[in-house]
């Protein structure tokens, strides 16, 4: 139970300011939740990963302004092709791409070359080195910089989508639980319709036919999941809240409908909404990556676009020797989406006491 409803009876008796009591109770609740959250190691792992990515997102603009030269390290228009000296070996005998080049490719540059001579090559997907810790992509851009820049976009997208989802889901759920009748039927049938239709095909069709940017996508994902599955789950929670005695008490005390919904029902539904926020972030991040991978979004850089670039330039099947093109981006999507999911699951065990270990 959150702070406001515990307080209903005690306000008059208390001498302390109301906001201080609320703050203290909230702090106590937070500490209790935190201790059981820490006890669950999986949630902590998720939180650590999220923090690491958060630091990466914050570090990027700082690095761009101090250490990294924007001409080289800009994630979208930067360019750098390190020159390496390679030894020419007979065709088909290349063992190490980093130091050897076959005769055929060398003669494309200079037909007079022979086996055993050296050649200065400017490399575009350059291997990781001291200047480019994760190498460069097929267009000569720094992969680490792209990765960090995209992290910010992923967080922005996830947070906007989650806020929209929870805003809509909580309001729709509470309103339809409180009013029932025709309002309830209307919203719930709408939710049925939305969960029925697969999420990804809708996004594919819409983003192929309309011009989508990151913010539009975030809002769309939020609206779809807010009116869909989240509304149904939050409505059932709101229903179980709305039959509690304190709601009747508030009504007898003369509370209006809006007061009841916004001051009593919604605060009690919020913990669960917060949980669904986490899952919504997961959905948003992986949908964005998938859509960018298919080349459907109007975004200049994201993790999905990094994979799309590597794939469309034909580096898929040589991904063992060019691991830095596919692995960092793919792993980042998986890790960040997965860690929000892990945090959500850990919170689920706190909010839903039936799941707790005995």
């Amino acid at each position, binding site marked *: 139970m959150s702070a406001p409803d515990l307080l209903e009876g005690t306000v008059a008796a208390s001498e302390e300011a109301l906001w201080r009591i609320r703050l203290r109770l909230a702090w106590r609740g937070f500490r209790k939740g935190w201790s059981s959250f820490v006890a669950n190691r999986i949630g902590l792992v998720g939180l650590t990963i999220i923090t690491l990515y958060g630091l990466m997102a914050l570090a990027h603009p700082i690095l761009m302004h101090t250490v990294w030269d924007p001409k080289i390290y800009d994630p979208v228009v930067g360019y750098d092709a390190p020159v390496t000296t390679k030894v020419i070996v007979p065709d088909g005998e290349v063992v190490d791409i980093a130091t050897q080049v076959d005769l055929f490719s060398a003669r494309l540059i200079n037909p007079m070359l022979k086996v055993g001579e050296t050649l200065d090559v400017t490399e575009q997907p350059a291997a990781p080195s001291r200047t480019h810790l994760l190498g460069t992509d097929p267009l000569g851009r720094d992969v680490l910089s792209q990765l960090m820049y995209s992290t910010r976009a992923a967080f922005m997208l996830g947070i906007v989508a989650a806020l929209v989802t929870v805003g809509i889901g909580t309001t729709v759920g509470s309103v339809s639980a409180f009013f029932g009748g025709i309002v309830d039927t209307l919203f719930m049938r709408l939710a049925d319709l939305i969960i029925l239709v697969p999420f990804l095909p809708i996004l*594919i069709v819409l983003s192929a036919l309309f011009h989508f940017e990151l913010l539009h996508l975030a809002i769309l994902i939020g609206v779809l999941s807010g009116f869909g*599955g989240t509304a149904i789950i939050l409505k059932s929670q709101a229903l179980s809240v709305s039959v509690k005695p304190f709601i009747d008490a508030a009504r007898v005390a003369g509370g209006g409908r809006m007061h009841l919904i916004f001051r009593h029902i919604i605060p009690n539904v919020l913990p669960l909404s917060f949980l669904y926020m986490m899952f919504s972030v997961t959905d948003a991040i992986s949908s964005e990556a998938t859509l960018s991978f298919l080349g459907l979004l109007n975004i200049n850089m994201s993790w999905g676009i990094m994979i799309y670039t590597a794939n469309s330039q034909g580096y*898929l099947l040589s991904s063992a020797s060019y691991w830095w093109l596919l692995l960092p981006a793919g792993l980042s999507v998986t890790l960040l989406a997965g860690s929000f999911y892990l945090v959500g699951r850990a919170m689920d065990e706190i909010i839903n006491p039936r799941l707790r270990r005995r």
Partner: protein
Amino acid sequence: MLKYVGKRVAQSLIVFFVFLTATYFLLQAQPGDISDQFLSNPKLTQEVRDQYAERLGLTGTPLQQYIRYIKNFTTGNLGVSFSEYPRQVWDILKERVPRTVALFFFATLLSFLVGFKSGKVLAWRRGKRGENLITVVGVFFQTVFYPWFALIMIRTFSFNFKLFPGGKFLNVEKWIDKPDTFDANSVFGRMLATAAVLGLTLLVLEVVTRRMHNRVISQRIVWGGRILLVGIVVVWWMTVWSVMLPYALDIGDHLILPTITLALIGFGGTMLLTRASMLETLREDYILTARAKGLSSKTIRDKHAARNALLPVTTSLVISLAFLIGGGVITETVFSWPGMGQTLLSAALQEDVPLVIGSFTFIAVLALVAHIVVDVLYMYLDPRIRVGD
């Protein structure tokens, strides 16, 4: 029972109609249409433009167009595809729907069975070593970035180990010398028919022998029946359809890797959910009773706990179906599997509106049918909500 199914079907029809309308107007609202590409050519005179617009069904107000579309839809005429111009949308769908249904069906079945079994064992071993690891693996499959995962699967199994082909529906080199009496679609149709007949007969066998009292005899009948049926299928393909057998095997070879990939994506969610649901069930008093009676732990796990834990898992199957269909679109795209998902994507990219509506509605039909099946299954599993009977 029948009444309930009838009611569900009627409801689904209404939902489908609403969906079709919403899709139609959504696509109408997009900026520009195919007529811009045809009609902006300065060499075309006004008359020719009008003729084009007339022939492509672009004349009249949106409402009139909608009414015309619905009229045609009810007679099975979904219009002409713009991107594959003279072909009817319906013909394209007829060719590709079975491929998607096969992929989706096998993957769902596989992921559900494996996910349920492993979730069951996972909950039973709670607190033992490796539990966190398996949970993390489950979450990994649940949240992994599919295209990347599919690419890794292709790389590992078809490029490194060379076990399966890396995509496409069939290997053209093997089909060059094919006799003219059949084509790929008819071979695939026969494969699906075989799978359907085999599956249904096995199901009937299972249900019939469940009713028998003697466990030993019923087990023998089940195993004998299974071996006999598989034998009949093998012999049938070796003799009656022997000409098609190598070609069927080729298609089957191409089907395996996408199915496994899609099943892995879906399996994590089912496993985690089964675990959570089993953990709740294990606290019930009847589990304690069963323990007190001295039943073996395998019996308690499989007969008492798992059967009750199955209910919430089945409910969530409804939600995960849409998830799997979405994953199927990606799987088809990455594996170049020519099904509905790939058709939808390429049609959407080329602004081929009739084909987009056609394939989109068929994905919705797939979801609707799957929902009805799951609802009926749920009713069969939970006696409390059996209606009427």
